[in-house]
Protein backbone atom coordinates (compact mmCIF):
# COMPACT_ATOMS: atom_id res chain seq x y z
CA UNK A 1 0.00 0.00 0.00
CA UNK A 2 2.78 2.39 0.92
CA UNK A 3 5.81 3.17 -1.21
CA UNK A 4 8.10 2.70 1.71
CA UNK A 5 7.79 0.02 4.27
CA UNK A 6 9.03 2.56 6.80
CA UNK A 7 5.76 4.47 6.60
CA UNK A 8 3.87 1.35 7.56
CA UNK A 9 6.16 0.73 10.49
CA UNK A 10 5.89 4.35 11.58
CA UNK A 11 2.13 4.14 11.48
CA UNK A 12 2.11 0.97 13.56
CA UNK A 13 4.57 2.38 16.10
CA UNK A 14 2.17 4.33 18.36
CA UNK A 15 -0.21 1.38 18.70
CA UNK A 16 2.68 -1.04 19.21
CA UNK A 17 4.17 1.21 21.86
CA UNK A 18 0.82 1.45 23.58
CA UNK A 19 0.39 -2.33 23.61
CA UNK A 20 3.94 -2.80 24.87
CA UNK A 21 3.62 -0.30 27.71
CA UNK A 22 -0.02 -0.85 28.50
CA UNK A 23 -0.22 -4.62 28.18
CA UNK A 24 3.05 -6.52 27.86
CA UNK A 25 4.88 -4.72 30.68
CA UNK A 26 2.03 -5.07 33.21
CA UNK A 27 1.55 -8.74 32.27
CA UNK A 28 5.29 -9.32 32.75
CA UNK A 29 5.13 -7.70 36.19
CA UNK A 30 2.08 -9.82 37.01
CA UNK A 31 3.80 -13.03 35.93
CA UNK A 32 6.93 -12.20 37.90
CA UNK A 33 4.74 -11.68 40.97
CA UNK A 34 3.08 -15.06 40.55
CA UNK A 35 6.12 -17.13 39.60
CA UNK A 36 8.72 -15.41 41.74
CA UNK A 37 9.73 -17.32 44.87
CA UNK A 38 12.23 -16.43 47.57
CA UNK A 39 14.73 -18.75 45.92
CA UNK A 40 14.17 -17.73 42.32
CA UNK A 41 11.39 -18.89 40.05
CA UNK A 42 8.90 -21.68 40.45
CA UNK A 43 5.39 -22.86 41.06
CA UNK A 44 5.56 -22.62 44.83
CA UNK A 45 2.95 -19.85 44.99
CA UNK A 46 0.52 -21.96 43.00
CA UNK A 47 1.11 -24.94 45.27
CA UNK A 48 0.39 -22.71 48.28
CA UNK A 49 -2.73 -21.38 46.60
CA UNK A 50 -4.16 -24.80 45.81
CA UNK A 51 -3.10 -26.07 49.22
CA UNK A 52 -5.74 -23.82 50.79
CA UNK A 53 -9.09 -25.70 50.92
CA UNK A 54 -11.13 -22.49 50.60
CA UNK A 55 -9.22 -21.42 47.49
CA UNK A 56 -9.61 -24.86 45.91
CA UNK A 57 -13.33 -24.63 46.51
CA UNK A 58 -13.44 -21.16 44.93
CA UNK A 59 -11.47 -22.43 41.93
CA UNK A 60 -13.80 -25.36 41.29
CA UNK A 61 -16.88 -23.22 41.81
CA UNK A 62 -15.56 -20.80 39.19
CA UNK A 63 -14.87 -23.61 36.72
CA UNK A 64 -18.29 -25.15 37.39
CA UNK A 65 -20.28 -21.93 37.08
CA UNK A 66 -18.28 -20.87 33.98
CA UNK A 67 -18.99 -24.23 32.36
CA UNK A 68 -22.67 -24.27 33.27
CA UNK A 69 -23.20 -20.70 32.08
CA UNK A 70 -21.47 -21.53 28.78
CA UNK A 71 -23.59 -24.65 28.33
CA UNK A 72 -26.84 -22.88 29.14
CA UNK A 73 -25.91 -20.00 26.83
CA UNK A 74 -25.14 -22.44 24.00
CA UNK A 75 -28.51 -24.20 24.37
CA UNK A 76 -30.54 -21.00 24.69
CA UNK A 77 -28.30 -19.28 22.14
CA UNK A 78 -28.89 -21.84 19.38
CA UNK A 79 -32.65 -21.65 19.92
CA UNK A 80 -32.65 -17.86 19.75
CA UNK A 81 -30.18 -17.67 16.86
CA UNK A 82 -32.13 -20.20 14.76
CA UNK A 83 -35.31 -18.20 15.36
CA UNK A 84 -33.59 -14.96 14.36
CA UNK A 85 -32.03 -16.38 11.20
CA UNK A 86 -35.34 -17.98 10.26
CA UNK A 87 -37.32 -14.76 10.79
CA UNK A 88 -38.57 -12.74 7.81
CA UNK A 89 -36.00 -10.30 6.43
CA UNK A 90 -37.46 -7.18 8.07
CA UNK A 91 -37.56 -8.80 11.49
CA UNK A 92 -33.96 -10.04 11.58
CA UNK A 93 -32.52 -6.60 12.23
CA UNK A 94 -35.11 -5.81 14.84
CA UNK A 95 -34.61 -9.11 16.68
CA UNK A 96 -30.83 -8.73 16.59
CA UNK A 97 -31.29 -5.22 17.93
CA UNK A 98 -33.36 -6.61 20.80
CA UNK A 99 -30.59 -9.09 21.63
CA UNK A 100 -28.05 -6.26 21.64
CA UNK A 101 -30.18 -3.92 23.71
CA UNK A 102 -29.14 -5.32 27.12
CA UNK A 103 -25.48 -4.91 26.12
CA UNK A 104 -26.10 -1.17 26.03
CA UNK A 105 -27.22 -1.11 29.67
CA UNK A 106 -24.58 -1.06 32.36
CA UNK A 107 -23.92 -4.49 33.89
CA UNK A 108 -24.14 -2.85 37.32
CA UNK A 109 -27.70 -1.72 36.68
CA UNK A 110 -28.64 -5.09 35.19
CA UNK A 111 -27.15 -6.94 38.15
CA UNK A 112 -28.85 -4.73 40.74
CA UNK A 113 -32.17 -5.37 39.04
CA UNK A 114 -31.71 -9.06 39.89
CA UNK A 115 -31.46 -8.21 43.60
CA UNK A 116 -35.00 -6.90 43.42
CA UNK A 117 -36.23 -9.77 41.26
CA UNK A 118 -34.60 -12.56 43.27
CA UNK A 119 -35.28 -11.18 46.77
CA UNK A 120 -37.66 -12.70 49.32
CA UNK A 121 -40.37 -10.27 48.28
CA UNK A 122 -39.21 -10.13 44.66
CA UNK A 123 -41.17 -11.03 41.55
CA UNK A 124 -39.90 -14.57 41.28
CA UNK A 125 -40.74 -15.45 44.88
CA UNK A 126 -44.16 -13.81 44.56
CA UNK A 127 -44.77 -16.04 41.58
CA UNK A 128 -43.50 -19.15 43.36
CA UNK A 129 -45.56 -18.61 46.50
CA UNK A 130 -48.56 -17.28 44.49
CA UNK A 131 -48.68 -20.46 42.43
CA UNK A 132 -48.39 -22.54 45.59
CA UNK A 133 -45.10 -24.12 44.48
CA UNK A 134 -43.60 -23.37 47.89
CA UNK A 135 -45.01 -22.16 51.21
CA UNK A 136 -41.87 -20.26 52.13
CA UNK A 137 -40.17 -17.82 49.77
CA UNK A 138 -37.11 -19.48 48.21
CA UNK A 139 -33.67 -18.31 49.22
CA UNK A 140 -32.24 -17.24 45.89
CA UNK A 141 -30.18 -14.15 46.63
CA UNK A 142 -26.56 -14.84 47.63
CA UNK A 143 -26.62 -18.37 46.22
CA UNK A 144 -24.88 -20.01 43.27
CA UNK A 145 -28.25 -20.06 41.49
CA UNK A 146 -28.43 -16.27 41.63
CA UNK A 147 -24.91 -15.91 40.24
CA UNK A 148 -25.73 -18.44 37.50
CA UNK A 149 -28.90 -16.58 36.47
CA UNK A 150 -27.11 -13.23 36.52
CA UNK A 151 -24.21 -14.49 34.41
CA UNK A 152 -26.43 -16.18 31.81
CA UNK A 153 -28.42 -13.00 31.45
CA UNK A 154 -25.22 -10.99 31.17
CA UNK A 155 -23.45 -13.10 28.53
CA UNK A 156 -26.17 -14.83 26.54
CA UNK A 157 -26.32 -11.99 23.97
CA UNK A 158 -22.65 -12.59 23.05
CA UNK A 159 -23.44 -16.24 22.30
CA UNK A 160 -26.57 -15.39 20.32
CA UNK A 161 -24.73 -12.83 18.19
CA UNK A 162 -21.84 -15.24 17.46
CA UNK A 163 -24.26 -17.99 16.49
CA UNK A 164 -26.41 -15.70 14.34
CA UNK A 165 -23.42 -14.70 12.26
CA UNK A 166 -22.34 -18.36 11.98
CA UNK A 167 -25.84 -19.48 10.98
CA UNK A 168 -26.09 -16.72 8.38
CA UNK A 169 -23.02 -18.15 6.68
CA UNK A 170 -24.64 -21.56 6.47
CA UNK A 171 -25.12 -22.50 2.79
CA UNK A 172 -28.85 -21.89 2.22
CA UNK A 173 -29.92 -25.34 1.08
CA UNK A 174 -27.99 -27.73 3.29
CA UNK A 175 -30.73 -28.15 5.89
CA UNK A 176 -33.41 -28.71 3.22
CA UNK A 177 -31.08 -31.20 1.51
CA UNK A 178 -30.59 -33.13 4.74
CA UNK A 179 -34.36 -33.16 5.33
CA UNK A 180 -35.01 -34.40 1.76
CA UNK A 181 -32.47 -37.14 2.32
CA UNK A 182 -34.44 -38.34 5.32
CA UNK A 183 -32.83 -36.67 8.33
CA UNK A 184 -35.30 -35.56 10.99
CA UNK A 185 -34.83 -32.16 12.67
CA UNK A 186 -32.63 -33.23 15.59
CA UNK A 187 -30.43 -35.27 13.26
CA UNK A 188 -30.12 -32.40 10.78
CA UNK A 189 -29.12 -30.12 13.67
CA UNK A 190 -26.47 -32.47 15.02
CA UNK A 191 -25.08 -33.66 11.69
CA UNK A 192 -25.38 -30.52 9.58
CA UNK A 193 -25.99 -27.29 11.49
CA UNK A 194 -23.74 -27.96 14.47
CA UNK A 195 -20.61 -28.92 12.47
CA UNK A 196 -21.06 -26.02 10.07
CA UNK A 197 -21.50 -23.41 12.80
CA UNK A 198 -18.90 -24.69 15.26
CA UNK A 199 -16.67 -21.67 14.62
CA UNK A 200 -19.42 -19.47 15.97
CA UNK A 201 -19.82 -21.79 18.94
CA UNK A 202 -16.09 -21.65 19.66
CA UNK A 203 -16.07 -17.85 19.55
CA UNK A 204 -19.30 -17.50 21.53
CA UNK A 205 -18.22 -20.16 24.02
CA UNK A 206 -14.85 -18.50 24.62
CA UNK A 207 -16.47 -15.10 25.08
CA UNK A 208 -19.12 -16.41 27.48
CA UNK A 209 -16.75 -18.59 29.51
CA UNK A 210 -14.03 -15.94 29.77
CA UNK A 211 -16.64 -13.33 30.60
CA UNK A 212 -18.22 -15.52 33.28
CA UNK A 213 -15.05 -16.50 35.08
CA UNK A 214 -13.69 -12.95 35.05
CA UNK A 215 -16.96 -11.16 35.89
CA UNK A 216 -16.77 -9.20 39.10
CA UNK A 217 -20.01 -7.28 39.60
CA UNK A 218 -22.35 -10.26 39.27
CA UNK A 219 -20.70 -12.62 41.78
CA UNK A 220 -19.99 -9.69 44.12
CA UNK A 221 -23.56 -8.42 44.15
CA UNK A 222 -25.59 -11.60 43.72
CA UNK A 223 -23.24 -14.04 45.42
CA UNK A 224 -21.39 -12.04 48.04
CA UNK A 225 -18.80 -13.56 50.34
CA UNK A 226 -20.76 -16.84 50.64
CA UNK A 227 -20.35 -17.54 46.92
CA UNK A 228 -16.79 -16.39 46.30
CA UNK A 229 -15.49 -16.80 42.77
CA UNK A 230 -11.90 -16.27 41.63
CA UNK A 231 -12.53 -12.67 40.62
CA UNK A 232 -14.20 -11.71 43.91
CA UNK A 233 -11.48 -13.56 45.80
CA UNK A 234 -8.86 -11.62 43.82
CA UNK A 235 -10.48 -8.33 44.79
CA UNK A 236 -10.67 -9.43 48.42
CA UNK A 237 -7.00 -10.42 48.48
CA UNK A 238 -5.90 -7.07 47.02
CA UNK A 239 -8.19 -4.59 48.65
CA UNK A 240 -8.55 -6.16 52.07
CA UNK A 241 -5.53 -8.31 52.70
CA UNK A 242 -3.09 -6.27 50.60
CA UNK A 243 -1.88 -9.67 49.38
CA UNK A 244 -0.65 -8.97 45.87
CA UNK A 245 1.06 -12.34 45.54
CA UNK A 246 -2.17 -14.35 45.86
CA UNK A 247 -3.83 -11.79 43.57
CA UNK A 248 -1.17 -12.32 40.88
CA UNK A 249 -1.57 -16.08 41.20
CA UNK A 250 -5.35 -15.76 40.74
CA UNK A 251 -4.88 -13.45 37.76
CA UNK A 252 -2.54 -15.95 36.11
CA UNK A 253 -5.00 -18.79 36.81
CA UNK A 254 -7.77 -16.76 35.16
CA UNK A 255 -5.65 -16.07 32.08
CA UNK A 256 -4.71 -19.77 31.88
CA UNK A 257 -8.35 -20.81 32.23
CA UNK A 258 -9.38 -18.59 29.32
CA UNK A 259 -6.58 -19.79 27.08
CA UNK A 260 -7.16 -23.46 27.92
CA UNK A 261 -10.90 -23.18 27.37
CA UNK A 262 -10.38 -21.56 24.01
CA UNK A 263 -7.91 -24.27 23.01
CA UNK A 264 -10.24 -27.04 24.21
CA UNK A 265 -13.22 -25.62 22.34
CA UNK A 266 -11.08 -25.20 19.23
CA UNK A 267 -9.80 -28.75 19.55
CA UNK A 268 -13.32 -30.12 19.94
CA UNK A 269 -14.43 -28.13 16.89
CA UNK A 270 -11.45 -29.39 14.90
CA UNK A 271 -12.24 -32.99 15.74
CA UNK A 272 -15.81 -32.52 14.57
CA UNK A 273 -14.47 -31.52 11.17
CA UNK A 274 -12.99 -34.94 10.37
Amino acid at each position, binding site marked *: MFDHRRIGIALAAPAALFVALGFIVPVAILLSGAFGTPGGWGLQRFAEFFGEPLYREVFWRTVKLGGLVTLASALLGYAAALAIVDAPAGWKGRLTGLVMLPLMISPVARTYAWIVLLGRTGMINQLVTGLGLSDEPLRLLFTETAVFIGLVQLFLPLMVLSLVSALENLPPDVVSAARVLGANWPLAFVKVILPLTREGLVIGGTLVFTGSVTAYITPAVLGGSKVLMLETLLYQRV*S*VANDFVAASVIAVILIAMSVVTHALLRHAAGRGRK
Partner: protein
Amino acid sequence: MRHMLPTLARRAAIAALLLASFAGVAQERTLVLSAFGVSQDLLRKDLYAPFEAKCKCKVVVNVGNSADRLAKMEARKANPEVDVAVLADFSALEAAAKDLIEPIDVSRLKNYAKLHEMAKDPIGNHMGVGYTYFATSIIYRKDKVKIESWKDLWKPELKGRIALPNITTTQGPTMLLMVDKAWGGTTPDFATGIQKVSEIKGGVVTFYERAAQVVQLFQQDEVHAAVVGRFNWPLIKKLNMPIAWATPKEGLTGGINVLVIAKNAKNKDLAYAFIDEWLSTEAQTRLAMDLVDSPANKEVKLPPEVADVLTYGKETVAGLNLIPPTQMLLRRKSWVDGWNSKIAR
Protein backbone atom coordinates in the same frame (compact mmCIF):
# COMPACT_ATOMS: atom_id res chain seq x y z
CA MET B 1 22.59 39.14 51.24
CA ARG B 2 20.40 40.17 48.33
CA HIS B 3 22.63 43.03 47.23
CA MET B 4 25.42 40.53 46.74
CA LEU B 5 23.56 38.65 44.03
CA PRO B 6 25.02 39.28 40.62
CA THR B 7 22.77 41.42 38.45
CA LEU B 8 22.12 38.64 36.00
CA ALA B 9 20.96 36.26 38.68
CA ARG B 10 18.79 39.00 40.13
CA ARG B 11 17.16 39.60 36.81
CA ALA B 12 16.58 35.91 36.38
CA ALA B 13 15.04 35.74 39.83
CA ILE B 14 12.70 38.61 39.04
CA ALA B 15 11.71 36.97 35.77
CA ALA B 16 11.03 33.72 37.61
CA LEU B 17 8.91 35.56 40.16
CA LEU B 18 6.92 37.23 37.39
CA LEU B 19 6.36 33.88 35.69
CA ALA B 20 5.30 32.36 38.97
CA SER B 21 2.77 35.10 39.58
CA PHE B 22 1.28 34.37 36.15
CA ALA B 23 0.96 30.76 37.17
CA GLY B 24 -1.19 32.05 40.04
CA VAL B 25 -3.02 29.13 41.64
CA ALA B 26 -0.14 26.76 41.06
CA GLN B 27 1.78 28.73 43.66
CA GLU B 28 -0.84 28.04 46.33
CA ARG B 29 0.28 25.34 48.72
CA THR B 30 -1.60 22.08 48.84
CA LEU B 31 -2.12 19.63 51.64
CA VAL B 32 -2.68 16.06 50.49
CA LEU B 33 -5.06 14.05 52.64
CA SER B 34 -5.62 10.32 52.28
CA ALA B 35 -9.11 9.41 53.53
CA PHE B 36 -12.08 7.06 53.37
CA GLY B 37 -14.53 7.76 50.55
CA VAL B 38 -17.60 8.25 52.73
CA SER B 39 -19.16 11.68 53.37
CA GLN B 40 -16.50 13.57 51.40
CA ASP B 41 -19.02 16.24 50.36
CA LEU B 42 -19.88 16.97 54.00
CA LEU B 43 -16.24 16.84 55.07
CA ARG B 44 -15.48 19.43 52.40
CA LYS B 45 -18.25 21.70 53.69
CA ASP B 46 -17.57 21.24 57.42
CA LEU B 47 -13.81 20.89 57.47
CA TYR B 48 -11.78 21.34 54.29
CA ALA B 49 -13.43 24.57 53.10
CA PRO B 50 -13.13 26.41 56.48
CA PHE B 51 -9.52 25.18 56.77
CA GLU B 52 -8.66 26.33 53.24
CA ALA B 53 -9.98 29.78 54.06
CA LYS B 54 -7.69 29.99 57.09
CA CYS B 55 -4.51 28.49 55.69
CA LYS B 56 -4.77 30.00 52.20
CA CYS B 57 -3.99 26.56 50.88
CA LYS B 58 -5.80 23.76 49.09
CA VAL B 59 -6.81 20.40 50.52
CA VAL B 60 -6.54 17.60 47.96
CA VAL B 61 -8.10 14.29 48.98
CA ASN B 62 -7.11 10.80 47.84
CA VAL B 63 -9.91 8.42 48.75
CA GLY B 64 -10.03 4.64 49.06
CA ASN B 65 -10.15 1.83 51.57
CA SER B 66 -7.36 1.40 54.11
CA ALA B 67 -5.45 -1.42 52.41
CA ASP B 68 -5.49 0.37 49.09
CA ARG B 69 -4.26 3.64 50.53
CA LEU B 70 -1.61 1.96 52.65
CA ALA B 71 -0.29 0.23 49.54
CA LYS B 72 -0.06 3.61 47.79
CA MET B 73 1.75 5.16 50.74
CA GLU B 74 4.18 2.26 50.76
CA ALA B 75 4.86 2.67 47.04
CA ARG B 76 5.60 6.40 47.57
CA LYS B 77 7.59 5.90 50.75
CA ALA B 78 10.77 7.56 49.45
CA ASN B 79 8.90 10.56 48.08
CA PRO B 80 5.66 10.83 50.04
CA GLU B 81 2.76 12.44 48.26
CA VAL B 82 0.38 12.26 51.23
CA ASP B 83 0.78 14.61 54.22
CA VAL B 84 -2.03 13.44 56.50
CA ALA B 85 -3.90 10.12 56.42
CA VAL B 86 -7.12 8.96 58.07
CA LEU B 87 -6.95 5.31 59.09
CA ALA B 88 -8.63 2.75 61.32
CA ASP B 89 -6.51 2.28 64.46
CA PHE B 90 -5.08 -1.11 63.44
CA SER B 91 -4.24 0.11 59.92
CA ALA B 92 -2.38 3.01 61.50
CA LEU B 93 -0.42 0.54 63.58
CA GLU B 94 0.39 -1.39 60.43
CA ALA B 95 1.57 1.86 58.84
CA ALA B 96 3.76 2.49 61.89
CA ALA B 97 5.23 -1.01 61.64
CA LYS B 98 6.07 -0.33 57.99
CA ASP B 99 7.71 2.96 58.97
CA LEU B 100 5.29 4.99 56.84
CA ILE B 101 4.23 7.47 59.53
CA GLU B 102 6.00 9.53 62.17
CA PRO B 103 5.20 10.40 65.79
CA ILE B 104 3.01 13.43 66.31
CA ASP B 105 4.38 16.20 68.51
CA VAL B 106 1.18 16.73 70.48
CA SER B 107 2.49 19.95 72.03
CA ARG B 108 1.89 21.52 68.61
CA LEU B 109 -1.84 20.68 68.80
CA LYS B 110 -3.71 23.18 70.96
CA ASN B 111 -6.90 21.11 70.86
CA TYR B 112 -5.19 17.93 72.03
CA ALA B 113 -6.12 18.42 75.70
CA LYS B 114 -9.83 18.50 74.77
CA LEU B 115 -9.82 14.88 73.55
CA HIS B 116 -11.36 11.94 75.40
CA GLU B 117 -8.67 9.95 77.21
CA MET B 118 -9.03 7.00 74.80
CA ALA B 119 -8.43 9.19 71.75
CA LYS B 120 -5.20 10.74 73.02
CA ASP B 121 -2.81 7.96 72.14
CA PRO B 122 -4.81 5.03 70.78
CA ILE B 123 -1.96 3.22 69.04
CA GLY B 124 0.93 4.16 71.30
CA ASN B 125 4.07 6.32 70.91
CA HIS B 126 1.83 9.18 69.74
CA MET B 127 1.89 7.73 66.24
CA GLY B 128 -1.70 8.87 65.78
CA VAL B 129 -4.49 10.85 67.42
CA GLY B 130 -8.08 9.57 67.54
CA TYR B 131 -10.64 11.90 65.95
CA THR B 132 -13.74 9.74 66.09
CA TYR B 133 -15.21 6.60 67.62
CA PHE B 134 -17.92 4.36 66.43
CA ALA B 135 -19.90 1.79 68.36
CA THR B 136 -20.84 -1.51 66.77
CA SER B 137 -23.93 -3.42 67.81
CA ILE B 138 -26.93 -5.35 66.53
CA ILE B 139 -29.76 -3.58 64.78
CA TYR B 140 -33.05 -5.43 64.61
CA ARG B 141 -36.67 -5.24 63.59
CA LYS B 142 -38.37 -4.68 66.93
CA ASP B 143 -41.71 -5.89 65.54
CA LYS B 144 -40.18 -9.29 64.75
CA VAL B 145 -37.63 -10.09 67.42
CA LYS B 146 -36.17 -8.88 70.70
CA ILE B 147 -32.40 -8.60 71.10
CA GLU B 148 -30.82 -8.21 74.52
CA SER B 149 -27.67 -10.24 74.12
CA TRP B 150 -25.20 -11.10 71.39
CA LYS B 151 -26.45 -14.67 71.87
CA ASP B 152 -29.88 -13.59 70.60
CA LEU B 153 -28.48 -13.77 67.06
CA TRP B 154 -28.81 -17.54 67.53
CA LYS B 155 -32.58 -17.33 68.10
CA PRO B 156 -34.41 -19.77 65.82
CA GLU B 157 -36.76 -17.08 64.49
CA LEU B 158 -33.75 -15.30 63.01
CA LYS B 159 -32.70 -18.29 60.91
CA GLY B 160 -32.37 -17.08 57.35
CA ARG B 161 -32.99 -13.49 58.44
CA ILE B 162 -29.60 -12.12 59.59
CA ALA B 163 -26.69 -10.38 57.93
CA LEU B 164 -23.27 -10.39 59.57
CA PRO B 165 -20.07 -8.57 58.61
CA ASN B 166 -17.48 -10.61 56.76
CA ILE B 167 -14.13 -11.10 58.50
CA THR B 168 -12.58 -8.84 55.85
CA THR B 169 -14.48 -5.78 57.12
CA THR B 170 -13.59 -3.59 60.09
CA GLN B 171 -16.73 -4.85 61.87
CA GLY B 172 -15.92 -8.54 61.37
CA PRO B 173 -13.24 -8.99 64.06
CA THR B 174 -15.09 -6.75 66.53
CA MET B 175 -18.23 -8.86 66.13
CA LEU B 176 -16.13 -11.97 66.82
CA LEU B 177 -14.82 -10.34 69.98
CA MET B 178 -18.36 -9.90 71.36
CA VAL B 179 -19.69 -13.24 70.17
CA ASP B 180 -16.68 -15.00 71.63
CA LYS B 181 -17.17 -13.16 74.92
CA ALA B 182 -20.92 -13.91 75.00
CA TRP B 183 -20.39 -17.64 74.48
CA GLY B 184 -17.63 -17.81 77.08
CA GLY B 185 -14.61 -17.94 74.79
CA THR B 186 -11.27 -17.63 76.52
CA THR B 187 -8.63 -17.84 73.79
CA PRO B 188 -7.35 -14.86 71.77
CA ASP B 189 -7.91 -16.77 68.52
CA PHE B 190 -11.69 -16.43 69.07
CA ALA B 191 -12.10 -20.18 68.46
CA THR B 192 -15.38 -20.26 70.40
CA GLY B 193 -16.82 -17.31 68.52
CA ILE B 194 -15.80 -18.70 65.13
CA GLN B 195 -17.26 -22.09 66.03
CA LYS B 196 -20.57 -20.52 67.13
CA VAL B 197 -20.86 -18.40 63.97
CA SER B 198 -20.13 -21.47 61.84
CA GLU B 199 -23.09 -23.23 63.49
CA ILE B 200 -25.52 -20.66 62.10
CA LYS B 201 -23.76 -19.86 58.83
CA GLY B 202 -26.48 -21.58 56.80
CA GLY B 203 -29.01 -19.21 58.31
CA VAL B 204 -26.97 -16.09 57.57
CA VAL B 205 -28.33 -14.41 54.44
CA THR B 206 -24.94 -12.93 53.63
CA PHE B 207 -21.66 -11.97 55.25
CA TYR B 208 -21.60 -8.44 53.91
CA GLU B 209 -18.49 -6.63 52.76
CA ARG B 210 -19.89 -3.16 52.25
CA ALA B 211 -21.88 -1.67 55.11
CA ALA B 212 -24.22 0.17 52.73
CA GLN B 213 -25.59 -3.22 51.67
CA VAL B 214 -27.19 -3.70 55.08
CA VAL B 215 -29.53 -0.77 54.51
CA GLN B 216 -30.76 -2.35 51.32
CA LEU B 217 -31.24 -5.75 52.98
CA PHE B 218 -33.52 -4.20 55.63
CA GLN B 219 -35.36 -2.16 53.05
CA GLN B 220 -36.14 -5.25 50.95
CA ASP B 221 -37.23 -7.17 54.04
CA GLU B 222 -34.46 -9.73 53.51
CA VAL B 223 -33.16 -9.52 57.07
CA HIS B 224 -34.54 -8.82 60.55
CA ALA B 225 -31.20 -8.36 62.32
CA ALA B 226 -27.65 -7.36 61.42
CA VAL B 227 -24.40 -6.38 63.10
CA VAL B 228 -23.37 -2.88 61.99
CA GLY B 229 -21.32 0.15 62.93
CA ARG B 230 -23.04 3.20 64.35
CA PHE B 231 -22.02 5.21 61.27
CA ASN B 232 -24.67 3.26 59.36
CA TRP B 233 -27.42 4.24 61.77
CA PRO B 234 -28.40 7.60 60.15
CA LEU B 235 -29.10 5.78 56.87
CA ILE B 236 -31.03 3.01 58.62
CA LYS B 237 -33.17 5.58 60.46
CA LYS B 238 -34.13 7.14 57.15
CA LEU B 239 -35.87 3.90 56.16
CA ASN B 240 -38.65 4.72 58.65
CA MET B 241 -39.00 1.08 59.59
CA PRO B 242 -39.40 -0.29 63.14
CA ILE B 243 -35.67 -0.88 63.56
CA ALA B 244 -33.91 -0.59 66.92
CA TRP B 245 -30.30 -0.35 68.03
CA ALA B 246 -29.62 -3.08 70.59
CA THR B 247 -27.76 -2.55 73.84
CA PRO B 248 -26.69 -6.14 74.51
CA LYS B 249 -25.94 -7.03 78.11
CA GLU B 250 -22.36 -8.01 77.18
CA GLY B 251 -21.82 -4.45 75.94
CA LEU B 252 -21.09 -2.77 72.64
CA THR B 253 -17.98 -3.01 70.56
CA GLY B 254 -16.56 -0.57 68.06
CA GLY B 255 -13.44 1.14 66.83
CA ILE B 256 -11.44 4.34 66.70
CA ASN B 257 -10.26 6.14 63.61
CA VAL B 258 -7.02 8.07 63.82
CA LEU B 259 -5.17 10.87 62.04
CA VAL B 260 -1.54 10.21 61.18
CA ILE B 261 1.27 12.20 59.58
CA ALA B 262 3.21 10.58 56.75
CA LYS B 263 6.90 10.12 57.41
CA ASN B 264 8.87 12.97 55.82
CA ALA B 265 5.64 14.69 54.80
CA LYS B 266 6.35 17.69 52.58
CA ASN B 267 3.92 20.07 54.30
CA LYS B 268 4.36 19.25 57.95
CA ASP B 269 3.29 22.69 59.21
CA LEU B 270 0.06 22.44 57.22
CA ALA B 271 -0.40 18.86 58.44
CA TYR B 272 -0.28 19.97 62.10
CA ALA B 273 -2.58 22.91 61.42
CA PHE B 274 -5.04 20.63 59.63
CA ILE B 275 -5.09 17.98 62.38
CA ASP B 276 -5.58 20.72 64.98
CA GLU B 277 -8.47 22.08 62.94
CA TRP B 278 -10.06 18.62 62.70
CA LEU B 279 -9.85 18.16 66.48
CA SER B 280 -11.24 21.63 67.22
CA THR B 281 -14.54 21.91 69.04
CA GLU B 282 -16.03 23.87 66.12
CA ALA B 283 -15.10 21.38 63.37
CA GLN B 284 -16.01 18.35 65.52
CA THR B 285 -19.39 19.94 66.30
CA ARG B 286 -20.11 20.70 62.65
CA LEU B 287 -19.18 17.15 61.62
CA ALA B 288 -21.28 15.67 64.42
CA MET B 289 -24.31 17.83 63.55
CA ASP B 290 -24.11 16.54 59.97
CA LEU B 291 -23.83 12.98 61.36
CA VAL B 292 -20.47 12.46 59.62
CA ASP B 293 -18.44 11.40 62.66
CA SER B 294 -19.02 11.07 66.38
CA PRO B 295 -16.85 13.55 68.28
CA ALA B 296 -13.64 12.59 70.06
CA ASN B 297 -13.46 16.12 71.50
CA LYS B 298 -15.19 16.08 74.89
CA GLU B 299 -16.15 19.76 74.72
CA VAL B 300 -18.56 19.11 71.87
CA LYS B 301 -22.15 19.63 73.04
CA LEU B 302 -24.86 18.00 70.98
CA PRO B 303 -28.66 18.24 71.07
CA PRO B 304 -30.30 14.96 72.19
CA GLU B 305 -31.66 14.04 68.75
CA VAL B 306 -28.14 14.18 67.29
CA ALA B 307 -26.46 12.55 70.30
CA ASP B 308 -29.00 9.75 70.01
CA VAL B 309 -27.81 8.87 66.52
CA LEU B 310 -24.07 9.12 67.13
CA THR B 311 -21.64 7.41 69.50
CA TYR B 312 -21.67 10.16 72.08
CA GLY B 313 -21.06 10.66 75.75
CA LYS B 314 -18.32 9.73 78.17
CA GLU B 315 -20.09 6.58 79.41
CA THR B 316 -20.78 5.27 75.91
CA VAL B 317 -17.22 5.85 74.81
CA ALA B 318 -15.70 4.38 77.96
CA GLY B 319 -18.02 1.36 77.76
CA LEU B 320 -16.94 0.25 74.30
CA ASN B 321 -15.22 -3.14 74.13
CA LEU B 322 -12.39 -2.40 71.75
CA ILE B 323 -9.86 -4.83 70.38
CA PRO B 324 -6.44 -3.44 71.30
CA PRO B 325 -4.85 -2.54 67.95
CA THR B 326 -1.69 -4.48 68.80
CA GLN B 327 -3.78 -7.60 69.25
CA MET B 328 -5.67 -6.90 66.03
CA LEU B 329 -2.42 -6.65 64.13
CA LEU B 330 -1.03 -9.78 65.76
CA ARG B 331 -4.14 -11.98 65.57
CA ARG B 332 -5.95 -10.87 62.46
CA LYS B 333 -4.39 -13.52 60.27
CA SER B 334 -5.35 -16.32 62.65
CA TRP B 335 -8.94 -15.02 62.80
CA VAL B 336 -9.10 -14.90 59.01
CA ASP B 337 -7.66 -18.42 58.75
CA GLY B 338 -10.13 -19.75 61.33
CA TRP B 339 -12.99 -17.99 59.59
CA ASN B 340 -11.93 -19.27 56.16
CA SER B 341 -11.70 -22.88 57.29
CA LYS B 342 -14.95 -22.91 59.31
CA ILE B 343 -17.28 -20.23 57.96
CA ALA B 344 -16.35 -19.12 54.45
CA ARG B 345 -16.48 -22.66 53.05
